[in-house]
């Protein structure tokens, strides 16, 4: 869909792609097959391919004659993608590479004709031979490409996922994407660009679910009352509506940002969208199934299929844990550079910087009022969102000071403190979500879209909850915080993993 029209594709922008994703996501297997084909399978050629490669492959891929697949994962390397063992050796005449290795869990592996394969090649740089990763376009017609039988999965059973083996596959030198040894950048770009559509896809699925579940809740009667009259059921619907709203806002905000002229780097925002949407989708589908009770559990109804399909959302395209690390560390890198800059200035003897830092700390102590321009006379947000905006501003400012404190405490060893980074990532995701929701609600109010007051309600609920969670997370990040249980958690984990079992004595054990 995103292939330019000159090659036969639709040439859709990111926003339009996200919109289409909403509809396709109604069936998980179809969505995954299409995503594997276009979001990652042919993205490599699209982003980093030469014109000849695009000419050669994109037309057939756009029409659907050939299907693409993305081959990165191996039995020994899932998240640790740079430890792959597949080798590509240069042949004697220097015109082609011989590819040897096997990949597992390749979506569309059985159907695909074009594979984007990542393999290790020997690169000579300054006389030193190192192994670097290179991306290749491999056609099934090159020979030596075999695929195993489709895997028996928990969900998305409609999509074809299988092992792919390469035995002395001859790949011409022209089929290298980017340059030899540049596979790392290509992989990163491909992976970072496909994520944002998950937000709108999940939102579409949840909207459909709300419709189906509400139908049921409003007709079924228990204790002479309709299910929809019970508070707990109503809470579930509110949760689903809220999550769907925020997911949509985030996804389209990111898509809009990516559609700006130039090539803006929205990888962090896309990662945030993916994390929030996958977890939100899992929770919402679970709640929807819960509303139906026993019927939701039956295979006759689609809820359990939705549940199984949405479980993979948390795992593929970068597991949520990895992405949290990414969000936090990219942010830390950016913040760290500014901080080191300031420290350098201070050390050089620049008094103004030192005074500025001192006054900032002083004002923090005295309880400052934060004004980031969202409220008040020149405020950007609509006045009915004043409270939420205030909460957002407070959170943002407090987050800034927290991050600075963390960098001062840990420095670059923060890479190893995953529990700290997880909280940082959670706060940033919440902040981004709040921003997206407030801006969308503000726009709805200002231009008078239908049901804008409902949107304002949703935004306010979400912002209050997120404000509370953020404050708690940031309180845990303080030094010597009483709420911080990291040390105890690590100790428990260490003791359990030492014995590789649950170590407490059974409650019925006796000593005499």
């Amino acid at each position, binding site marked *: 869909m995103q292939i330019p029209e000159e090659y036969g594709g639709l040439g859709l922008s990111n926003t339009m792609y996200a919109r289409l994703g909403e509809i396709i996501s109604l069936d998980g297997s179809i969505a995954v097959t299409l995503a594997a084909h276009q979001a990652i399978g042919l993205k490599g050629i699209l982003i980093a391919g030469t014109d000849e490669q695009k000419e050669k492959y994109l037309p057939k891929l756009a029409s659907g004659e050939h299907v693409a697949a993305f081959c990165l994962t191996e039995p020994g390397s899932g998240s640790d993608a740079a430890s792959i063992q597949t080798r590509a050796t240069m042949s004697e005449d220097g015109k082609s590479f011989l590819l040897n290795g096997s990949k597992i869990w390749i979506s569309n592996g059985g159907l695909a004709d074009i594979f984007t394969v990542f393999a290790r090649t020997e690169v000579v740089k300054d006389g030193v031979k190192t192994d670097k990763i290179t991306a290749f376009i491999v056609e099934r017609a090159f020979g030596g490409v075999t695929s195993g039988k489709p895997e028996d999965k928990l969900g998305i059973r409609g999509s074809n996922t299988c092992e792919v083996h390469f035995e002395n596959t001859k790949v011409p030198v022209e089929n290298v994407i980017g340059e030899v040894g540049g596979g790392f950048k290509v992989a990163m770009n491909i992976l970072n660009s496909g994520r944002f559509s998950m937000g709108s896809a999940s939102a579409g699925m949840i909207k459909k679910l709300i419709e189906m579940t509400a139908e049921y809740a409003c007709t079924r009667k228990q204790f002479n009352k309709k299910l929809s009259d019970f508070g707990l059921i109503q809470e579930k619907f509110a949760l689903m509506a809220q999550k769907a709203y925020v997911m949509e806002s985030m996804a389209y905000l990111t898509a809009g940002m990516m559609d700006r002229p130039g090539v803006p780097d929205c990888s962090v925002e896309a990662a945030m969208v993916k994390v929030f949407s996958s977890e939100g989708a899992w929770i919402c589908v679970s709640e929807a199934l819960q509303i139906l009770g026993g019927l939701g559990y039956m295979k006759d109804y689609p809820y359990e299929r939705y549940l199984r399909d949405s479980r993979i959302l948390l795992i593929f395209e970068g597991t949520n844990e990895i992405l949290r690390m990414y969000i936090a560390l990219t942010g830390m890198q950016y913040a760290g550079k500014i*901080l080191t800059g300031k*420290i350098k200035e201070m050390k050089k003897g620049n008094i103004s910087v030192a005074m500025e830092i001192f006054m900032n700390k002083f004002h923090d102590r005295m309880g400052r009022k934060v004004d980031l321009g969202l409220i008040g006379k020149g405020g950007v947000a609509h006045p009915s969102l004043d409270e939420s905006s205030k909460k957002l501003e407070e959170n943002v400012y407090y987050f800034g000071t927290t991050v600075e404190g963390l960098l001062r405490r*840990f420095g670059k060893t923060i*890479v190893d403190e995953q529990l700290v980074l997880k909280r940082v990532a959670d706060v940033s995701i919440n902040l981004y979500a709040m921003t997206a929701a407030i801006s969308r609600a503000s726009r709805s109010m200002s231009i008078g879209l239908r049901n804008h007051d409902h949107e304002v309600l949703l935004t306010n609920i979400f912002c209050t909850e997120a404000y509370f969670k953020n404050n708690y997370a940031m309180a845990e990040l303080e030094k010597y915080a009483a709420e911080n249980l990291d040390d105890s958690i690590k100790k428990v984990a260490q003791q359990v993993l030492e014995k590789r079992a649950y170590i407490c004595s059974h409650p019925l054990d006796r000593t005499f």
Partner: protein
Amino acid sequence: MNCVRKLLLARELSARPGVLRQLAPGLDLLRLQGSSCAQRFWPVPVRSHSKFTPAVKGDQEKDGESRDGSLVPLEELFDRACKGERNKAAFTRAVELFCQRDVRRRGHIEFIYAALQKMPQFGVERELDVYNKILDVFPKEVFVPRNFIQRMFNHYPRQQECGIHVLEQMENYGIMPDNQTKFLLLQIFGAKSHPVRKYQRLMYWFPKFKHVNPYPVPVPLPQEPIDLARISLQRIAADLSAKVTVYQMPLTDILDSGKEITQPHIVGIQSPDQQELLAHHNPDRPVFVEGPFPLWLKKTCVYYYVLRGELLPPGEKGEMLDSERNFYYPMHLDLDLDRGPWDDEEFDVDEAEEGPIFAMCMAGAGDQATLAKWILGLQQNNPILSQTPVVFHLAPGPRELLAASDSEPGEEEIPQSRRAQQEC
């Protein structure tokens, strides 16, 4: 007071010349059983005398007069009962013999002390029911104080001490008493007596100490050399991923020519981390087989051998993480900031560096041929061993696996390092 007592005793002795045996505590038992709880002051000296009669009897023994004193027949009792075999059945038979011999259980305190001494010889010191049987020797409900005066003054102190000694022996061997013991003690001495207090103390502390060892040795220790080797190797390695392989089973073969070949057992252990270390080992440097090192498991000593490499000079160690390792997030931040001194939780540990240990084994015989078989077996999973020179640093220690007998450690001799290059 003492002289008065001796006078009275002398009167008793003179009164009944030939029946000195009956001057045992059994006499006071008669009187106790006959009398009411009120202590009459006249008989008191006699009764308290009887508690001193063991001393008197001891004097008698010292006198050399061959009376039918308590200690001599006790020895005979035990010898007679065991009939050459010293085990639990014999011991219980001896105790029963004593009990049946006399309803009044005269000389029971001496008997109990003698029995406590004899228990290790019969090998029953860790059996709880034997202790219960010994406690059973005490006559019941006789020593229970019946009024406040008896309760005030240490009632039947010798018997209480004897009871305490039984419980102390139980405590020394770490045996937890059970309900039967409690009922016996209550029946014999009554509540609030010293033995019952000691029992209560035992029952307070022993459950707390039962699981205090995080690495308990299994009881009973297996006698089979392969099982023993497996348990002790897993104990040393302390790694749950380590795999124990039996390279050779013990075998005794008799060839046609009549010669006997004995094959000692070889049991080895290696964990995946050790395998990786060995795979990264430089084949130009030698690896050393050292041993035997002793490992004590309660009363058993087993010996193990170690395959070890040398410490690498710091230049050859480790590889830096390259920046393209992780596709998803940066594993190394390019900042100029270090951990603040308040958060630096690293301790300045002075570690004694030693080279990597690649595998361990226990073998029935500690000579080079057997250990060479072990190395051959290790080569299955670690092909690099075929190119690495193996140096054997073997101390002339014990040649056989010793299981429950003490041996003189051969390590006291100067270990002669026999250097031998072996390439297969």
